[in-house]
Every structure is written in structure tokens, then in C-alpha cells.
């Protein structure tokens, strides 16, 4: 009886193995690419316009196609399904058989460039799902959506050339990037603020680096970057990023940001036609590093995201009250307790010269007339009287304890550390272009003693609890 048991066991296990062998044989003999190549061949035979073409079509060998790029150790087998990619007879065929669009392949022959340098995806894969590397294939760089494809052009070409020769989107994205003040918060090549993450290599980072939880659709880095530009707080709820872009602008910026890859292309692939020196005039620098928060610098606005009033640094009455040396100190050291970064060379990385140019640009509208100085030391300030005056005159906008409302938060370290004379001048002359009116003889009519009292009280606000 025992031998019968073992014989049955052998029979069953052998049959199971046979079934697996049969399945494996079947799937090895009918891969996806073989079906596509048969379609390709049949299409060409059917649509041959002369006998010679038909004969050549009939001679097509069906087999795995591969482009191997020695200098990059890349093997792209995409042409196993996309066999018609260089064939003008396939110009109007359906995918995967269609010829490559445009004239890109004239200068980028498939045999030298393969496919994945530009399109990404998993070149070695032999079926659509894995080759395109979309959701659930665990491939970090799935196929690049066509609307961002120009980011690949910038791997080898300069933006000046791209602007004129078919890379308009990515070139425009680069221009946007320079003009939107992105580097006010993000470091790139070691220069930039530190409120946001550094952007180096972001285009070739692994998927796991990005918090994908709130991304709608496929969880790819392309969708992450795009949707994060559209609405940063939708993707990263605690984000303080100030991005207010139209859909088109965020597409362009996404395209540009994806050019920040950590790989370097081999030299024989690079084609740099123009060496463009980065612009270092004050205005360009202001746009690159400051504009995201300070916008045009003309009006101070309470910012809902940063939870503070952003000072109007190009406002003439502000400039009138503050001299270049003080501005420079602020730029170099930043403002502790606020989002203002220290821009000196060993922090955010701007050189002394660049800081000077920015200041020159900011201060270009400084009124010629000097502010009448306010000698605070001359007055014996009375804090108690200051408090009474403060409650009548200032609390409405600045809050009962100076915590800020319509007006600035006066408890913040910037105000607390400021020179009393500077504060006194501001109270006396007001801040044109902001809701702060002049309280001196030209306005509300307080005498200098009153102002000195108020300033002395303001200086004590940091010790007050809310």
C-alpha cells in the first residue's frame, strides 16, 4: 500500500511540474514583443507600395532588438516593440509602431542615443508595463510624460541654444525659475536660502525620497513635482512654499526642475553651443533670491503662509530711514526669528559683491532728502506714559500687547533689536505705502517726548506675556 501512496505522490507532483513547464513554454513562445513585431511585419507587407518593399518586408526577422550604449552601459530594448521608430513608412501608424515624431532622430540616431536617455523608463524590460515603469513596478524613473520631455534636452544642451532650437519649454522654465525667486528658499549648487530643501539632483532622486501620500494619480516624481507646484500644501500639508502659478507656468517649471539630475552625460554626447554667464546685476539677483517673499517690495503685506508681515523693502520711506550699512547687516546676518535667511557667503552663499548689488538695486528709489534725525537720548523716557499712549494710538493695529494684527508684531526680535532712533523716526514719519501713518508733527501731532515714551515702552514688549 505504501508504494502506491508514493507512486501517486510522484504522479501528482510530476503532473504539476509538467503543467508549469507547459505554461513556461507557452509564455516564452508568445511574448508581447513578438505579437507587436508580427503586427509590424504584417502591416508593412499589407501596405507595401511596390514589389521590392514587399519583398524586404517579408524578410524581416522577428527577434529581440537591443541598442547597447557602451559609454553608459545602457541597454535599451524598446525597439523590440517600437520597431517602426525610424521607419518613415510608419509615420501614421498606431503605437507602438509609429515613427518618432519631429526630426529629433536626425541628430539623435537611435543607434547612438537609444531611448531611455530622453524618455526614461526601464530600457531592459521586455513588456509594456515594466518598460514604461508605471505604478507598482517599483521603477524609480518611469516613462517621462511628453509635456516634460524637454527636460531631457538640457542634459546635453545649453538653454540659449534650446530657446531657439526646439527646447522652448525648458528654456522658458529656466527663465521662470530665475525670475520667481525660487532660490530665496532653495539651495542649488550651494547657493540659496534654507527654508526649503536643496534642489540638486531632484530630477534623478528615487521615488521613496518624495512624500507621495497626497499625490493624485500615478505616484511618479513627475506628478509629485507638478502637483506640488500647483498647490504645495496639497502635497506637503506643512509646506511654507510660496508658489502661485498658473497651470502652464507650473508645467514649465516642472520641466525645468526635472533637469536637476545628478548624473553627468558622457562628453561625446554633450553639445554646448553657448557659454552663458549667470546674470549678476542687482535686479536679476533680486529676482533670483528675494522676490518670492518681498515681491516688488513696494507694499508690506501680511502673509497667511509665513504668518507675518513681509516688510516693503523698496518703499521710499523705509529706505529713507535705513542706511546701506544697516541693510547690508540685515542681508548678511538675516533676521533671527523670521524667515529671512542670512545671505553671507558661508550661510546662503552670496558674495559680498552680490549683496552690494542687491542693496544698490533695493535702494535705487531712496529719496534724496535725508530724514531729520531723532535724538532719542535727549529725552528722559517714561515707560508708563508710553504704555498709556501706546494703548490709545498703537494697540488698534499692533495689538494690545504689541502682538501684531494689521500692523507688525512688535515683539519680534527685529523690532526689539532695532535702534531706538530708527523706531522713533518710523513712528514720527510713518511708513508711506503701508497703513502706518506719521504720528509726528506732520501727522497725528504727537510731540517728540510722546514718541520717545512710546519707543521706550515698545522696547519692553518682548518681556510681556500674551
Amino acid at each position: 500500500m505504501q508504494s502506491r501512496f508514493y507512486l501517486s505522490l510522484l504522479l501528482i507532483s510530476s503532473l504539476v511540474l509538467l503543467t508549469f513547464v507547459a505554461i513556461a513554454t507557452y509564455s516564452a513562445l508568445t511574448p508581447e514583443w513578438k505579437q507587436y513585431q508580427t503586427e509590424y511585419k504584417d502591416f508593412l507587407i499589407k501596405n507595401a507600395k511596390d514589389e521590392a518593399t514587399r519583398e524586404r518586408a517579408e524578410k524581416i526577422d522577428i527577434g529581440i532588438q537591443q541598442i547597447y550604449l557602451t559609454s553608459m552601459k545602457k541597454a535599451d530594448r524598446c525597439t523590440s516593440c517600437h520597431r517602426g521608430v525610424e521607419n518613415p513608412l510608419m509615420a501614421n501608424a498606431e503605437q507602438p509602431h509609429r515613427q518618432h515624431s519631429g526630426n529629433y532622430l536626425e541628430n539623435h540616431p537611435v543607434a547612438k542615443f537609444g531611448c531611455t536617455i530622453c524618455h526614461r523608463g526601464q530600457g531592459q524590460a521586455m513588456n509594456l508595463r515594466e518598460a514604461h515603469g508605471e505604478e507598482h513596478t517599483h521603477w524609480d524613473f518611469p516613462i517621462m510624460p511628453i509635456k516634460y520631455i524637454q527636460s531631457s534636452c538640457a542634459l546635453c544642451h545649453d538653454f540659449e541654444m534650446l530657446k531657439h532650437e526646439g527646447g522652448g519649454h525648458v528654456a522658458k522654465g529656466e527663465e521662470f525659475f530665475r525670475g520667481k525667486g525660487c532660490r530665496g528658499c532653495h539651495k542649488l549648487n550651494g547657493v540659496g536660502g534654507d527654508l526649503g530643501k536643496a534642489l540638486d539632483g531632484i530630477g534623478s532622486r528615487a521615488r521613496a525620497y518624495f512624500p507621495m501620500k497626497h499625490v493624485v494619480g500615478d505616484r511618479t516624481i513627475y506628478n509629485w513635482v507638478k502637483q506640488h507646484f500647483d498647490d504645495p500644501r496639497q502635497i506637503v500639508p506643512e509646506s511654507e512654499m510660496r508658489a502661485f502659478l498658473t497651470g502652464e507656468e507650473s508645467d514649465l517649471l516642472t520641466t525645468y526642475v526635472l533637469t536637476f539630475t545628478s548624473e553627468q552625460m558622457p562628453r561625446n554626447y554633450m553639445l554646448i553651443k553657448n557659454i552663458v554667464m549667470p546674470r549678476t546685476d542687482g535686479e536679476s539677483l533680486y529676482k533670483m533670491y528675494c522676490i518670492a517673499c518681498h515681491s516688488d517690495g513696494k507694499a508690506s503685506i501680511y502673509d497667511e503662509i509665513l504668518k507675518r508681515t513681509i516688510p516693503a523693502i523698496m518703499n521710499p520711506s523705509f529706505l529713507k530711514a535705513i542706511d546701506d550699512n544697516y541693510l547690508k547687516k540685515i542681508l548678511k546676518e538675516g533676521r533671527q526669528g523670521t524667515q529671512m535667511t542670512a545671505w553671507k557667503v558661508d550661510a546662503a552663499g552670496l558674495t559680498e559683491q552680490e549683496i552690494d548689488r542687491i542693496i544698490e538695486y533695493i535702494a535705487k528709489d531712496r529719496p534724496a532728502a535725508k530724514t531729520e534725525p531723532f535724538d532719542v537720548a535727549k529725552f528722559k523716557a517714561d515707560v508708563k506714559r508710553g504704555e498709556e499712549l501706546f494703548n490709545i494710538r498703537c494697540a488698534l493695529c499692533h495689538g494690545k500687547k504689541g502682538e501684531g494684527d494689521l500692523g507688525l508684531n512688535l515683539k519680534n526680535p527685529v523690532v526689539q533689536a532695532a535702534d531706538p532712533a530708527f523706531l522713533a523716526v518710523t513712528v514720527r514719519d510713518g511708513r508711506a505705502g503701508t497703513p502706518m501713518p506719521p504720528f509726528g508733527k506732520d501727522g497725528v501731532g504727537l510731540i517728540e517726548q510722546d514718541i520717545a515714551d512710546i519707543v521706550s515702552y515698545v522696547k519692553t514688549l518682548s518681556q510681556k506675556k500674551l
Partner: protein
Amino acid sequence: MSNGNRNEEGVSRRDFLGLAAFGAAILASLGALAGSLRFVKSNVYSEESKKFKIGKIENFPIGTTRSIDGKSVFIFSDDNGLFAISAVCTHLGCIVYPTEAGFQCPCHGSKYNQDGKVIGGPAPRPLEWFEISQEVDGTLFVDAGKAVPNGTKYIFA
């Protein structure tokens, strides 16, 4: 199976079970073995293809001699058709240059006639000839990985 448990009905039940079991086992093992033998030879190799595009037939009117940049191959077109001859000297691999009489190697003076046959110098073998093929759309390709007998010329439409 050896105890010969036969009766009039032919194979006994146990014999049938044994036969089927061993038969299936052998079949399955052979199948699995055959399947794994498929992996001995690779479908594709990690190396650059030696096949390259040379353009349309219109670019090669009769009488053309062309060397292809970076590929060390000469393409000729005469009355008998198109042919591709390697420019790599069979002696030590220098790149030969065309002369009146055929080819000359700059390194050790090997000489070849117009068909690549050795007519002087240390070269041991004639220059290789390569296969030329035509894609469906008419584009011509030379495959420097596929040698063909010397004298093979191709006529294309």
C-alpha cells in the same frame, strides 16, 4: 513493475499507476531540463551592435568610394553592386588607407589589392568583407559583425 503482475485485462492497476508516475516524472524532468538549456545561450549580449546605417542607395552611385567615420569600413559601388570592405589590417589591426592599387597599411607596409587580397607585407589574411542589408524603408546597413565571402557584392533597388 518487474514482478509481472499481469492478468488477461493487460496492465494491472498498480502497473498502470507506476508507469504513469515514472513516465510523467521523466517527461517533466526532460521538459524542465530542455527549458533550462534555453538559458545557456543569451538572447542578447551586453555589447554595442556592429550594425550601422549608411543611408540610402541614392548616396552610392556607381564609382563611389566612401569610408565611414569611426567605423573603419570602406564602402564601394561598382557595376556589379555595392560592397563593404573592412579597413582593419589583418596583421596587427592598424587602419589601412586606399591607394591606386588597393589598400596599404601604414604600420608594417602590408599591401592589399582592390578586393582586399594580400599582395605584400606581413598580413596573413585578406581584408574582411561585410554584409550589407536593406531595411524595409530602403535604408542600407552594414553589419561589421557579419563577414561574408570576399567578392560578395549586393545589388539593391
